[in-house]
């Protein structure tokens, strides 16, 4: 009895010391210098949420213009900028950063780690994302926003057809943002490879982490194509090269190939983590693990690989040789199989589990319904003959909103409600959440279902207005009404989150009784996540009494240390010390911002100054610590 209480005392002292060492003072400096993955993750979520709001306002303006035939709310030029920024921002500045935000906040917790593998790189990635977003949105205020559509096809976007800075904002902004995405992806991969809790062998890794890792691998291989495409377009526009100009030997289709070699994997870069969120939410509300775990993992990886072989289905109408049409058509139909496996796994989980209907589950169910509908129209597009008829019509707009809004935004909202206790320590109101779900689900389908019909009736996408009498009027009006209902629903989501954070009750520890390690930490987690290193014995560590009792009694790991484990079996290897807070990530991002602004404004001395500043900051950042006589690192 006395020994146990003595042990408890030592443990309490050790935890108190840990608290002291990890405590971040509430100062301005610490706000800018923090490397805590939870704070950075929250920032990603809030910033991406704000960009979602801005891009959503763009969309409401578009719908207002299209509410009736011959609308005159917007000029054609404004319309072009708005639909381009809506698409570009939703894809690049909202979807991926939002899901990376979830990854940042949750991956280390789910793995039982104390932070990401490269905490400072993580902070750097956030600042770059923020600055890239600010550059791109501020162009909208100045009236020079990109206006060539979110996939910016040449020759329209090349000279002489698009003079002005608009497309330079696009090319440079996306390359700048790509730095952040690449850094984030490498960080996720290394974290998942090296920082898993002892015992978390590959067959015990949570499905959400699998999804984030598969996504990160896709980013590593796909993003260079987009960066190269944008760099070549920038060179064409600014320095007179001829990559996309046939009159000097270039080729316009090169852009489409490069863009979609990135662009189709990007669809799954957005959807896979969202599917991971679904797989993470379901166990808590079905009271069992996701059915067919190995199949879901294999389906995730298969999707990631096959997605690199379907890009030309965006180009069926460009006159490619018919052999390549059949190949890409077959691959496009094939890729629905792994997605189908995941859908059946989720349905089976609900069927064989004990379903608890709460707000996060509602959004998951809404996701399954909507995503399957989007998948069905997707298979239709995979068939070349159908695609030829319907490409570039509103049917396409309907399809990809079903897949991207249904496939990503529903799980994201579900994820916000589910993880709000981890992110903020509060639980959102169930009543407001249900109203929000009703409005979002109803508003979504009222907005986008009619677009299938206006598309089949021949309405092309990206027209700023249309004459009446073509049978499109009623469907457009319905879409516009739906978009306002959808906006009301989304506002209600924001309202319920803000109310919960401002004056909601404190969440009970582990309020949903979740199965992964983020629920085994405190709610919300302490800055060091876990006082002692978790030991994992199965797929659902937070439901495992062995893990929980060892977490409460194991020796405390002191200081800023983390445990490295082996790549496959997560056997303990050694302790390493983690970097502490630093202003250098912010400074490096600012220096890069100077480079981008210099290039954008054609003030090349400024760009060169930015490059020099970046080098200076990075050299200091990575300077190795002095060795003492004994060869150890000096403190």
């Amino acid at each position, binding site marked *: 009895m006395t020994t146990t209480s003595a042990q408890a005392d030592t443990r309490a002292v050790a935890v108190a010391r840990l608290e002291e060492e990890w405590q971040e003072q509430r100062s301005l400096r610490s706000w800018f210098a923090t490397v805590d993955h939870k704070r950075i993750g929250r920032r990603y979520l809030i910033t991406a949420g704000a960009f979602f709001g801005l891009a959503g306002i763009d969309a409401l303006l578009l719908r207002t213009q299209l509410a009736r035939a011959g609308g005159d709310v917007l000029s054609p030029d404004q319309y072009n900028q708005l639909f381009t920024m809506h698409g570009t921002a939703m894809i690049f500045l909202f979807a991926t950063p939002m899901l990376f935000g979830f990854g940042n906040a949750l991956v280390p917790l789910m793995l039982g780690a104390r932070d990401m*593998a*490269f905490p400072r*790189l993580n902070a750097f990635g956030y600042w770059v994302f923020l600055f890239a977003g600010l550059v791109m949105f501020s162009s909208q205020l100045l009236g020079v926003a990109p206006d060539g559509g979110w996939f910016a096809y040449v020759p329209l976007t090349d000279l002489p057809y698009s003079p002005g800075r608009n497309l330079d904002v696009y090319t440079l902004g996306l390359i700048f943002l790509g730095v952040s995405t*690449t850094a984030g*992806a*490498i*960080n996720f*991969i*290394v974290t998942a*490879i*090296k*920082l898993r809790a002892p015992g978390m062998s590959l067959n015990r890794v949570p499905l959400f982490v699998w999804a984030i890792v598969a996504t990160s691998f896709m*980013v*590593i*291989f796909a*993003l*260079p*194509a987009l*960066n*190269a495409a944008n760099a*070549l377009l920038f*060179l064409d526009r600014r*320095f*007179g*090269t*001829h*990559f996309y*100009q046939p009159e*000097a*030997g*270039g*080729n316009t*289709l*090169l852009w489409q*190939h*490069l863009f979609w*070699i990135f662009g189709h994997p990007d669809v799954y870069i957005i959807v896979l983590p969202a599917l991971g969120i679904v797989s993470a939410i379901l166990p808590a509300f079905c009271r069992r693990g996701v059915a067919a775990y190995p199949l879901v993992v294999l389906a995730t990886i298969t999707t990631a690989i096959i997605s690199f072989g379907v890009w030309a289905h965006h180009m069926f109408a460009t006159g490619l040789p018919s052999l390549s049409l059949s190949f890409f058509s077959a691959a496009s139909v094939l890729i629905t199989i792994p997605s189908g496996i995941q859908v059946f796994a989720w349905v089976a989980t609900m069927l064989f589990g004990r379903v608890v209907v709460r707000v996060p589950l509602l959004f998951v169910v809404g996701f399954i319904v909507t995503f399957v509908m989007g998948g069905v129209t997707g298979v239709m597009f995979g068939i070349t003959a159908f695609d030829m008829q319907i490409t570039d019509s509103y049917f396409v707009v309907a399809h990809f909103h079903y897949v991207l809004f249904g496939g990503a935004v529903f799980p994201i909202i579900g994820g916000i409600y589910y993880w709000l206790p981890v992110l903020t320590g509060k639980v959102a109101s169930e009543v407001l959440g249900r109203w929000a779900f009703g409005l979002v689900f109803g508003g979504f389908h009222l907005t986008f279902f009619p677009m299938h019909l206006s598309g089949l009736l021949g309405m092309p996408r990206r027209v700023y207005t249309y004459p009446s009498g073509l049978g499109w009027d009623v469907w457009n009006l319905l879409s516009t009404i739906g978009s306002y209902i959808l906006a009301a629903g989304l506002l209600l989501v924001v309202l319920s989150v803000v109310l919960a954070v401002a004056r909601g009750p404190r969440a009970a520890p582990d309020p949903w009784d979740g199965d992964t390690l983020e629920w085994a930490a405190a709610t919300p987690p302490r800055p060091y996540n876990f006082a002692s290193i978790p030991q994992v014995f199965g797929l659902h560590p937070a439901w495992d009494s062995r893990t929980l009792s060892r977490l409460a009694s194991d020796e405390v790991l002191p200081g800023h240390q983390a445990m*490295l484990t*082996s*790549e496959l*079996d997560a*056997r303990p*290897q*050694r302790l*390493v010390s983690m970097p502490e807070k630093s202003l250098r990530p912010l400074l490096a991002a600012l220096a890069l911002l100077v480079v981008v602004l210099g290039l954008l404004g054609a003030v090349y001395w400024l760009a060169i100054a930015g490059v020099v500043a970046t*080098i200076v900051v990075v*050299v200091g950042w*990575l*300077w*190795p*610590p*002095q*060795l003492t006589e004994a*060869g150890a*690192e000096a403190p």
Partner: protein
Amino acid sequence: MTGRLFTESTAPEALAAEPAPRSIGWWGMVGFVTTEAALFAVLLGTFFYLRFQHGEPWPPREIERTELTVPLIMTAVLLPSSLPVVWAERGIRRGQPWRLRLGLTATIVMGLTFLSLQVMEYRTKLREFTLTTDVFGSLFYAITGFHRLHVAVGVLILSWVLAASLRGSFSSHKHERVSLAAIYWHFVDLVWVGILFTVYLSQHL
């Protein structure tokens, strides 16, 4: 020799052992080099796509077949430049900082020689064609220039490691940054082979 190596490395004991532990820095650098390699693959793929979509004549405007002497000398300087880095890294692993410093200096000198030879090469080429002459000119300068940027960054990184080693930052136990810089240099070095084949040799086939 190879046969014995093969039998040894596939023996049951060898297969049962876990591979040597890799640090997070090693995985991070490998991830970075992988995405960089994808970027070069895209650029070289772009070259061949444009070349074959264009058909004959290639290059589109009258450009004489590229002279190979200077680029081959450049290759002869750059390719072996990885060897001193390997030698230097092994040296510090055995606790011989002088080998680290000497090897790094040799590689930096070879890298700088490559960059100066390329200036000569650009001087001759610019008399024949520029970035804006036609799509071949654009490809030539964009791809070689982009690689040149990587060599310059590599020289910078190696100089930084050299400076740190002169200050005594590395020991037989603590030299991870040396290994990471070496990975980057090997990559920059190997990519040149692909570029040499694509922009220079492929025309002579």
